[in-house]
């Protein structure tokens, strides 16, 4: 028994030695594997901890939705009247809540140990500081400042929140006020965070897929060389299992180094994220940015395991000088495109993350087949020798070809999905306010209630099932609109009983004027929602476009790395025949054309397919909320094209190596 372990130990040691002293090629392979794994591990942990942070925040501020969420579990003997209204200060979101106990034991939101009594106000530290700087703001929160909302009830430490204590009689008259029996809102009850978590999960998948491709490409770089080295081992008497151990050892070393680096990178990155990343108006606290220990452990063990498996899959079981993947299997068939079609269908059926996952997998599974198609097209379209060689190379090993271009295709898919779903959120509203105009959504107050707010130049609108009821010419005074506009209707009479929908009030445009008006509105109609052109458009999704762009860029960069790694690997493997071709009078330019055509043809087709899949996925994902569907704009398309071009250029950056690597006077006969 000890003898056997000893022998295995020696084989492992041999693997270690081959990996560490295998020359420049082995070093590059080690480096690429390590970098790929590091990137993958860091990213996965980061995505998971971001999700934890978002979930934590959802749990802490869920109480603000107590009046709008239907089934809140009761956690107290008595009830309370409650209303939370979103407000802004100079564009910063602020929550103004009203509460009135309906008995001695009312529910209490997290962050408070009791409800504020009528005449009392509970402030978050951030809001208290703000009021100290803008004393006039205090009038919007009438009452004695007696309570402080602790971080348990705040999304982030700087959040601006006030809970104003009122008598039940005060609040009964206010529209939208609800009787609540508890504030323990489950995050699952919060639609916004649910969507957001699904998005995060999907993005994690989208981000990880190209990393996996990179890792596989990296660990399979010049698999041919390794195959011949292992063949030599087998000739020297090593068993199949022993050569497998040698191969696995080499990959495992790279993966182990990568996991360590990835873990360190994650520790740094989560601090950077906590310090710089603003999500929904506030930073994510470092304490929230964490993953459960078992997930960390699983990642640290699973990533190298996955890498070793990926490298061993279809691993060179050396039989001779046959280059890997040549003529060993039938080519991929059209059936492999099935998951690509099934993924979006699943998304349609409602299984969003699963559907997205299957689509990503589908792009990868169908990739080699698409490459075969691209090769056939290339052979048909062009008769030159470079395209002939390129087409034959694609056909001979579509899997390897695809791994090189797959990352870019995934980037295209991700960019398309993100660009077509979130673009709408940051689009300016279709009726942007004129400068200085403040928009008040009265929630259906009477003309009498808003009379005090109507200043010269103010425009009132009625509200019906058709939307705003107002003459377009009037509306054009306060918002940027070209008449005729669809919601055109009769002028709203300011007779006391008329129901007012919206009120547009012109001001001198100063922050002080806006704040004064907000305070007046809050006093008269506590449930009204006030917006000015200082407020961010697409409330709640601020910064998401930037996030999406960053994600796409990341995927693209990883894809480009795969492309470069793939190109380098292909060069290393085809070194000798290419050198001989050059000796026989083939120009370097023709060899360059082989490499470029091979990349361009497969990348074009897979990217176009990924783009189509992305459109379909995005459309399916937004089916339940069509407002989010947003067909890609010319700018998105231009960005996509530019990204792909950049990736091609990066791949072309490997081309100068083609010259020295295939120098005809370097043909050796080892």
């Amino acid at each position, binding site marked *: 028994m000890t003898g056997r372990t000893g022998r295995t130990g020696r084989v492992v040691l041999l693997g270690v030695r081959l990996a560490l002293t295998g020359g420049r090629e082995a070093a590059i392979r080690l480096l690429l594997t390590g970098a790929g794994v590091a990137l993958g591990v860091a990213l996965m942990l980061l995505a998971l901890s971001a999700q934890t942070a978002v979930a934590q925040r959802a749990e802490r501020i869920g109480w603000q939705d107590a009046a709008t969420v239907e089934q809140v579990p009761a956690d107290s003997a008595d009830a309370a009247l409650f209303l939370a209204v979103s407000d802004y200060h100079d564009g910063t979101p602020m929550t103004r809540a009203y509460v009135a106990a309906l008995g001695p034991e009312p529910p209490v939101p997290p962050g408070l140990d009791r409800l504020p009594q009528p005449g009392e106000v509970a402030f978050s530290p951030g809001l208290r500081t703000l009021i100290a700087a803008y004393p006039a703001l205090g009038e919007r929160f009438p009452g004695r400042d007696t309570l402080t909302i602790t971080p348990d009830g705040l999304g982030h430490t700087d959040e601006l929140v006030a809970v104003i204590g009122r008598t039940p009689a005060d609040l009964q008259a206010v529209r939208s006020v609800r009787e609540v029996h508890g504030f323990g809102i489950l995050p699952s009850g919060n639609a916004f965070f649910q969507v957001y978590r699904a998005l995060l999960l999907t993005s994690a998948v989208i981000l990880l897929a190209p990393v996996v491709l990179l890792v596989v490409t990296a660990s399979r770089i010049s698999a041919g060389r390794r195959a011949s080295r292992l063949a030599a081992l087998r000739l020297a008497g090593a068993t199949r299992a022993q050569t497998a151990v040698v191969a696995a050892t080499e990959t495992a070393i790279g993966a182990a180094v990568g996991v360590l680096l990835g873990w360190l990178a994650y520790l740094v990155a989560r601090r950077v994220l906590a310090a710089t990343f603003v999500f929904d108006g506030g930073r994510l606290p470092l304490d929230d940015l964490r993953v459960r220990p078992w997930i960390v452990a699983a990642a640290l063990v699973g990533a190298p395991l996955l890498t070793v498996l990926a490298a061993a899959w279809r691993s060179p079981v050396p039989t001779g000088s046959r280059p890997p993947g*040549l003529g060993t299997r039938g080519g991929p068939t059209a059936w492999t495109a099935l998951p690509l079609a099934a993924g979006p269908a699943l998304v349609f059926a409602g299984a969003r993350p699963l559907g997205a996952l299957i689509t990503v997998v589908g792009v990868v599974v169908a990739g080699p087949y698409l490459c075969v198609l691209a090769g056939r097209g290339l052979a048909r379209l062009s008769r030159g*020798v470079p395209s002939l060689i390129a087409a*034959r190379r694609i056909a001979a090993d579509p899997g390897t070809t695809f791994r090189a271009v797959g990352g870019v295709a995934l980037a295209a898919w991700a960019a398309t999905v993100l660009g077509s779903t979130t673009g709408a959120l940051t689009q300016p509203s279709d009726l942007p306010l004129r400068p200085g105009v403040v928009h008040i959504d009265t929630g259906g107050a009477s003309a009498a209630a808003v009379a005090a707010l109507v200043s010269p130049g103010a425009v009132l609108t009625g509200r019906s099932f058709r939307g705003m009821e107002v003459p377009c010419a009037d509306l054009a005074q306060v918002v940027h609109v070209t008449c005729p506009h669809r919601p055109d209707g009769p002028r709203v009479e300011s007779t006391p009983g008329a129901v007012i929908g919206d009120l547009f009030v012109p001001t001198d445009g100063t922050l002080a004027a806006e704040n004064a008006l907000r305070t007046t509105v809050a006093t008269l109609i506590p449930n009204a929602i006030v917006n000015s052109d200082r407020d961010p458009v697409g409330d709640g999704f601020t910064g998401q476009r930037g996030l999406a762009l960053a994600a796409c860029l990341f995927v693209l960069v990883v894809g480009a790395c795969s492309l470069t790694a793939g190109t380098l690997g292909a060069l290393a493997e085809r070194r000798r025949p290419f050198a001989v071709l050059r*000796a026989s*009078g*083939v120009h370097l330019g023709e060899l360059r054309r082989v490499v470029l055509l091979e990349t361009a043809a497969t990348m074009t087709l897979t990217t176009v397919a990924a783009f189509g899949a992305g459109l379909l996925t995005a459309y399916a994902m937004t089916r339940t909320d069509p407002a989010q569907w947003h067909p890609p704009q010319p700018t998105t398309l231009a960005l996509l094209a530019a990204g792909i071009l950049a990736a091609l250029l990066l791949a072309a950056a490997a081309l100068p190596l083609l010259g020295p690597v295939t120098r005809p006077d370097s043909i050796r006969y080892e």
Partner: protein
Amino acid sequence: MAPLLTGVDLHKAFGRTRALRGAGLTVAAGEIVAVIGPSGSGKSTLLRCLAAIIAPDAGEVRLDGRRIDDLPDRTRTGLRRSEFGFVFPFGQLVPELPAAENVALPLLLAGAPRRRSLAAARDWLTRLGLPDAADRRPADLSGGEAQRVALARALIARPRVVFADEPTGALDSVAADQVMDLLVDAARAQRTGVVLVTHEPRVSAYADRTVLVRDGAA
């Protein structure tokens, strides 16, 4: 016989290794010249200089009386393509191309139509005793078969000179004889000059003339 290719007083150093020190050689049309000598004596370097793959440090190479060693790299590449054929000991076939396309490469590179080039390649394969190899990839050929395919590729464009560096280096004697017979017959028939580098007397016996290289001089 007017010389087809001549190399005179060729010198070439790689760093401090002086691979060639005044080597020279002449080949006439249809003539087969064997270059023999101990390992490391500079045989392959001489071949590469003569074939305009590398430029010598001193001396000159002439094809049909015109100097070719001092031409720019691009021109030399074109020259190799149109005037020369090459056979190396192994691993020269493009692994992804079936045998027929490998053979047809020189014609295709010269811009000949695909169908005609492939037909010619099949003819050559048949002539070299490989009628069934046309659609097989190099990895599925034996060493001897692969060398015959390489030979067909070297000869198909009717080059003026074929350079063969240890063409039988990786073959057993039966396969080696077969390859050499075919090379000699084809060269005679096409009046192609052959520079044959070898260290096997058995192979050099096929040549009309033998040149001995020792310490970079011939």
